[in-house]
């Protein structure tokens, strides 16, 4: 029966996430962006809250109750991204590996791989999906995985690989000929070359890298599951949820500003031009959220949901650009100044039509 209410567990999670995002992430967001680093104390604090551990079933050492739902994952992603996108992607990075193993991996792989991400402290995860060319599309990768006896040989180039230099393993997505495979490549593997840290329009606080794979050999056991496209769709759900979070951040900030700023004898929020812009931002943000929730729900039903995910992904990517741009416009000249966060949300928001496989639910 159609129902949009969160259950009690979800409400609890949302409250926790929102509080953490508001009290700890947001105040650190600008400095993290300018300093191009995520403060360790945030990493530790997030670890304590157990966003990762909670996504792993008890059977494997986590304290999650069964497989975490994509909707719950979306709620967490939205909440953290509302604090700051770069920080959210960093904090949730272990799920790039954990989720893939949980959802696609063999029992043995689960037992072998998951514990490393359940230590006393945060262990960064990493995934390599995007490739450095204009027309890149997640279903047409040029990075290849060739089977040779008991090994896979990986060749190709990736970019926007978050935490590649920091993570113990990178989950590399590559074309296997019959689809897309995901391969766990340990740091320092022969044939894996990690380039300079990238500089991008947004995500300054998040360390991303270009990597080269030249005849990089991994054992057959390093392949997680079969067709890994399913994980890339889940990634789109996570990213779309984050887009909603970024849009909400911009909307709420613009509302407060517009109610405080005087012009022509009233608050600018009392001008229809501004008020209607805010109303439109609110409607678009909510519409995108519901579309993505439905996509997440469809995945939770065990369907591939490729259509639902594609629709929500496209809608959210366009929405967040429009909403964050309007958020900046509401602040006028002040929005263009880095004293306010709105320009940061524009720069981060623009990335959602490019990001692939950078988060997971």
């Amino acid at each position, binding site marked *: *029966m*159609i*129902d*949009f*209410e*969160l*259950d009690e567990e*979800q409400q609890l999670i949302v409250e926790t996430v929102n509080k953490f995002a508001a009290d700890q992430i947001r105040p650190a967001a600008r400095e993290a962006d300018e300093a191009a680093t995520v403060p360790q104390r945030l990493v530790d604090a997030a670890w304590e809250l157990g966003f990762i551990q909670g996504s792993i079933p008890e059977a494997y050492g986590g304290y999650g109750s069964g497989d975490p739902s994509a*909707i719950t994952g979306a709620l967490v992603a939205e909440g953290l991204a509302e604090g700051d996108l770069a920080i959210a992607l960093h904090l949730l990075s272990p799920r790039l590996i954990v989720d893939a193993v949980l959802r696609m991996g063999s029992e043995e792989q689960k037992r072998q791989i998951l514990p490393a991400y359940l230590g006393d402290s945060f262990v960064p995860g990493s995934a390599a999906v995007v490739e450095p060319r204009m*027309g*890149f*599309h997640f*279903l*047409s990768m040029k990075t290849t995985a060739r089977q040779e006896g008991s090994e896979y040989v990986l060749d190709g180039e990736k970019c926007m690989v978050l935490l590649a230099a920091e993570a113990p393993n990178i989950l590399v997505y590559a074309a296997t000929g019959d689809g897309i495979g995901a391969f766990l490549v340990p740091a320092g593997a022969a044939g894996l070359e990690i380039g300079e840290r990238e500089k991008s329009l947004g995500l300054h606080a998040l360390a991303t890298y270009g990597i080269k794979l030249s005849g990089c050999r991994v054992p057959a056991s390093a392949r997680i599951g079969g067709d890994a496209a399913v994980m890339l769709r889940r990634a789109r759900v996570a990213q779309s949820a984050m887009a909603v979070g970024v849009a909400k951040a911009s909307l709420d900030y613009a*509302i407060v500003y*517009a*109610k405080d700023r005087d012009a022509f004898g009233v608050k600018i*929020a*009392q001008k*229809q031009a501004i*008020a*209607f812009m*805010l*109303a*439109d931002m*609110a*409607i678009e943000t*909510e*519409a*995108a959220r*519901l*579309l993505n*929730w*439905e996509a997440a*729900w*469809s995945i939770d*039903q065990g369907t591939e949901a*490729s*259509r639902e995910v*594609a*629709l*929500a992904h*496209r*809608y959210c990517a366009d929405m967040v650009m429009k909403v964050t741009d309007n958020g900046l416009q509401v602040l006028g000249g002040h929005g263009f100044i880095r004293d306010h966060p709105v320009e940061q949300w524009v720069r981060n928001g623009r990335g959602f039509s490019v990001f692939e496989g950078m988060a997971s639910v």
Partner: protein
Amino acid sequence: MDFSLSNNAQNRIAMARMLAENMMRPIARQFDEEEHTDPWDFFNMMWDASKLNREATTLGGGGGKSSGDGDKKKRSENTLLACMQIEELAWGDAGLYLSVPNPGLGGAAVQAVGTPEQKQRFLANFYEGKPKWAAMAITEPHFGSDSKQVATTAVRDGDMWVLNGTKIFCTAGHRALDKSDGFVVVWATLDKTKGRAAIKSFIVPAGTPGVTVTKVEDKMGIRASDTAMITLEDARIPADNILGTPEIIEKDSRAGFGGVMATFDSTRPIVAASGIGVARAALDLLRECLTEQGIKIRYEASPYEQTVLEREVMNMEAQLQAARLLTWKACNMMDRGQRNSKEASMAKANAGLSVTRITQKCVELAGPLGYSRKMMLEKWMRDAKITDIYEGTQQINQLIVARSILGYSSAELN
């Protein structure tokens, strides 16, 4: 969170869909071309069907009340069900759906703020006898959205109210007053100087002397639906035909103006749903035609490969589903007994714009066939536009959303 349809919903939708396909589609074009005629066979059929299942065709049907039937869960989904069924009926034909003999907006008002006695007199036996219509008359020539400008007067004379004024844009007003034994709920003021608080609504039954339908509008779309201009000249109705208290309470109250306004919280999602039905009809047909031509939409294709056509279809599907989900959420909140004015206006504003764009785009993408009256697409474009206008224009609903998110009164933001 749950996006699955209950068995109850599936059954209601299937039934409405059956009506839409078999009873409405076949005559939709005829009653668009033959404006101002009445599809009596359809009326009679729907009238009988309504006796079997009223929610299907009652605007705002039982919003908030528990349905108690079929569905296992205790919680109500009546508003949701009404929207789902209305989407199907509007998918069949929006003009005919609006013409279905039923208590309509007039009945919704009586239901929302009427006394038990009034409900008894005007609703209890409504479905007896021949097809009937009940309508709502708010708008007047000099105002549209600004409904506190009501200039139609109601003066107490003994145990009667005497009404004078002119109403326009009264949906089904002609059929309610001239073609059936129905009634119209008329907004009138007891004292023009007292603004909102003095505006009351009155139940004016068919046959009331002094009540005349002076014009039935020629429209761009939804032509099967009659849109009446009603003139009231010393129209006398019984004293107890007033909805709510005759006292002028300065502060808005559920019983007065505010009460009638509150019905918008259920009618706006319903209007959204009807528009969504029309847009879905257009999108369904476009996709059928594309499929016939062997064109498959590659949802996951890159912009370097995806055609403009594919992207447009994709955008339309997303817009349509977004509007639907916003509408369902507004219904869901009402069914949970939560205040949903903001969500109702969000749904209405979003749907109004989306269905207008979708139907216009479908005509464009179908090329010369889309522009021809041989196909239904052009009609649906004409039918869809009203969604962005009645029950509060796009602008009014944006204003309501803006006030809500900004925490402003109508004085602070207007």
